[in-house]
């Protein structure tokens, strides 16, 4: 099995996007390959100015919970999703956008951060990545 991590990011929740990008860049840092397949609510985070826009998966409280968590994260010196994505890309991480979600939600390529996206694909692309991966996660 190849030294590779393939993650399906189905959720667009801020905390889960953190998990996906932290695991992805951690894998790259430890010498593995990594791909994240952004689908459904996760794909929303690839929209221009969309990466930081996700709600908190629990205790969002109309944004108050997210605001509080953000303050705590700032205090703990947690980096932004924007910077995590930059590092993920710099270390060779692959970003795949789900084209079926784009069709369902009426999202065009020009609505997305095309500079981050390596490929547009469907389930076959995910399976092809996952079958050669030692680790695959659904977030």
């Amino acid at each position, binding site marked *: 099995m190849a030294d590779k991590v393939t993650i399906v990011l189905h959720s667009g929740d801020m905390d889960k996007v953190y998990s996906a990008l932290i695991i992805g860049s*951690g894998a*790259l840092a*430890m*010498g593995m390959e990594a791909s994240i397949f952004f689908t459904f609510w996760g794909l929303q985070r690839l929209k221009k100015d969309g990466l930081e826009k996700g709600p908190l998966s629990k205790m969002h409280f109309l944004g108050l919970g997210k605001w509080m968590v953000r303050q705590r994260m700032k205090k703990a010196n947690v980096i932004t999703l924007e910077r*995590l994505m930059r*590092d993920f890309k710099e*270390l060779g991480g692959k970003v795949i956008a789900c084209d079926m979600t784009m069709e369902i939600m009426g999202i065009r390529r020009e609505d997305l951060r095309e500079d981050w996206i390596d490929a547009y694909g469907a389930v076959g692309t995910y399976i092809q990545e996952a079958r050669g991966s030692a680790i695959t996660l659904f977030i």
Partner: protein
Amino acid sequence: MAEILVDCRGETCPVPLVEARKAIRRAQPGDVIVVIGTHPASREEIPMAVRALGLELLSVEGTETDWTIRIRR
């Protein structure tokens, strides 16, 4: 051969690990990368990454919350 300093003091997961890896990628073979930090888990995890990458871990010094790791590319 250069010595490259990566100062990750005050940074938390996954920054020290990721910054160490970025520096290793940019370094030339033979260069020494010196990572300094305060994040406890990274003191254990950076050496794991160094071994996984097949590089030479020169030293790990200091305490859990104030450490220096030296790596040869």
